[in-house]
């Protein structure tokens, strides 16, 4: 299970926080030591969460190759990265996969989200359940099933099998994100558009789409990072020469710790965080439908 559960939870958290009743006056004295204890505990937990990442980032600048000691600041490892053919090729592969998978998954996922949110049709319930499968089923099972499938239909493993696999499990994430966006969508806007003369296609193009676009982009960014970061499924279905970045990193890790891994990991880390931060921003509905605001009476 990955990102979106938390994404959607965090998404409602700010709104939830805004609804919090004002804190009732606390009793002083006996409660303070408990609060302090909890505060320290939380601090330690935050450290626990962040220290490994920070160490990784730190070590990517460490001149020393093997020991834990700090030998001096260097950008050598980053330099070496760009000269490392294997890594560069893996990056290229990852980008090809991520871009292709994102485009297709976003389009297909948006379409199905629209259908689920707006229309009833035969097989709706089954479709909804099927969309949960990629999220529920353990990644190894997905990977194993896919490689078996490709074997049975005699499709040679390649970069494109990776793309297909990624599209398959990314659709669900896009569908969830876009659906959430559609749920808050004010239907009277579409009615107003029809009322003013716009047919169904024009209504979608001029009203619905612009308003849900931030949600669609957020979904796209989400699956882009999921695709870039994916190891397990990719490792099963990638063919020879179709090494993606996580696979490359993994094989380097098995051999031993190399500083170049630190460097490429740091870069990947930063990329992911930036992309998701943007996605979160987009999901936070900057122009909530005004009519909905009035409806709160």
């Amino acid at each position: 299970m990955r990102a979106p559960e938390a994404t959607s939870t965090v998404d409602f958290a700010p709104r939830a926080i805004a609804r919090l009743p004002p804190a009732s006056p606390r009793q002083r004295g006996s409660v303070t030591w408990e609060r302090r204890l909890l505060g320290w505990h939380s601090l330690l937990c935050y450290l626990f969460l962040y220290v490994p990442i920070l160490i990784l980032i730190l070590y990517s600048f460490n001149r020393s190759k093997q020991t834990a000691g700090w030998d001096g600041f260097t950008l050598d490892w980053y330099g070496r990265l760009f000269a490392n053919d294997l890594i560069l090729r893996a990056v290229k592969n990852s980008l090809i996969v991520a871009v292709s998978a994102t485009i297709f998954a976003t389009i297909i996922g948006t379409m199905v989200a629209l259908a689920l949110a707006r229309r009833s049709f035969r097989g709706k319930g089954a479709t909804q359940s099927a969309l949960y499968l990629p999220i529920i089923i353990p990644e190894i099972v997905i990977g194993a099933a896919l490689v078996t499938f490709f074997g049975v239909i005699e499709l040679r493993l390649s970069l494109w099998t990776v793309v297909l696999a990624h599209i398959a499990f990314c659709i669900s994430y896009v569908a969830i994100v876009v659906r959430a966006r559609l749920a808050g969508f004010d239907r009277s806007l579409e009615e107003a558009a029809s009322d003013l003369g716009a047919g169904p296609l024009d209504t979608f193009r001029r009203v619905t789409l612009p308003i849900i676009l931030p949600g669609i982009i957020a979904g796209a960014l989400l699956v882009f990072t999921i695709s870039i970061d994916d190891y397990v499924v990719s490792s099963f279905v990638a063919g020879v020469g179709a090494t993606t970045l996580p696979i490359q990193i993994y094989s380097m890790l098995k051999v031993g710790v190399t500083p170049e891994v630190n460097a490429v990991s740091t870069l990947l880390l930063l990329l992911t965080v930036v992309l998701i931060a943007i996605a979160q921003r987009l999901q936070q509905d900057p122009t909530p439908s005004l009519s909905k605001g009035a409806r709160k009476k």
Partner: protein
Amino acid sequence: MPEETPRRGWASYPLVLPTWVVLGFFFVLPLVIMLIISFGQRGTYGGLKAIEDLGAYVTSGDFLANYKRSIEPLYLSIYWRSLWMAVVTTVLCLAISYPMAYYIAVIAPAKWKNLLLGLVVIPFWTSFLIRTYAWMLILRTEGLANSLLQWSGLIDQPLNLLYTDFSVMIGLVYGELPFMILPLYASLEKLDLKLLEAGNDLGANSPQTFFRVTVPLTMPGIVAGVILVFIPSIGQFVISDLLGGAKSILVGNLIQNQFAVARNKPFGSAIAFELTAVVLMLLFAYAMYTKKKGQEVLL
């Protein structure tokens, strides 16, 4: 005014058709094929052994051979370890997360909540692989942990921290922690503090209030968190591969092994299916729980 009826009509189908095709072909079908294969036998070169007579095969002992083999003691010990690890991970996560979620939800000033929550989420946006690797850096013999311990004089020789059950456990807890914190936070945040005050008012001291009021009220969050942590934990593969040694093989590694190394797809499929079955049963139980309690599903 009655709810708007969703529009019916044939126009829905083009919208869902691509999804049906993709999910059907690249998800449902592979799973079905995997199920079928799990009843087969490994061929000489790693493929499938051809079956002459289907009828005879089904009634022969070979049909369920993989499943029978999967419950041999060797494998049972692996399942047991996976289960055990998942349980311990879940318990540890719960113990660590609850105070933290409580702090953020109940004690922290309102203007910081967003930030604190965001800080919890950021690490887990990043690649699982990379975060696990970070622990390799820390726990290896020349790594930070050993260096600190030696430098502070607590030990003379570097400890063998990596490639043990211990390192796998740390990796698991580390990876799953946000999944426990968030549902707990969601539940705690909804908690009406007046209820706690009422508890105090009625004579319960703090620990009693906690166990008799807070915990039951946040049960949905606890259950959701447990599910969100337990299920990925039993299917874990990367962490045990990187941080665990040959002794720490889990179900995930077993499956991967069968497919990549032993090239016994049928057997691997059988195990994969058993794992999936367990996951689905747990989720089903969760669905029943939420329906019975009439409580909102936090997932």
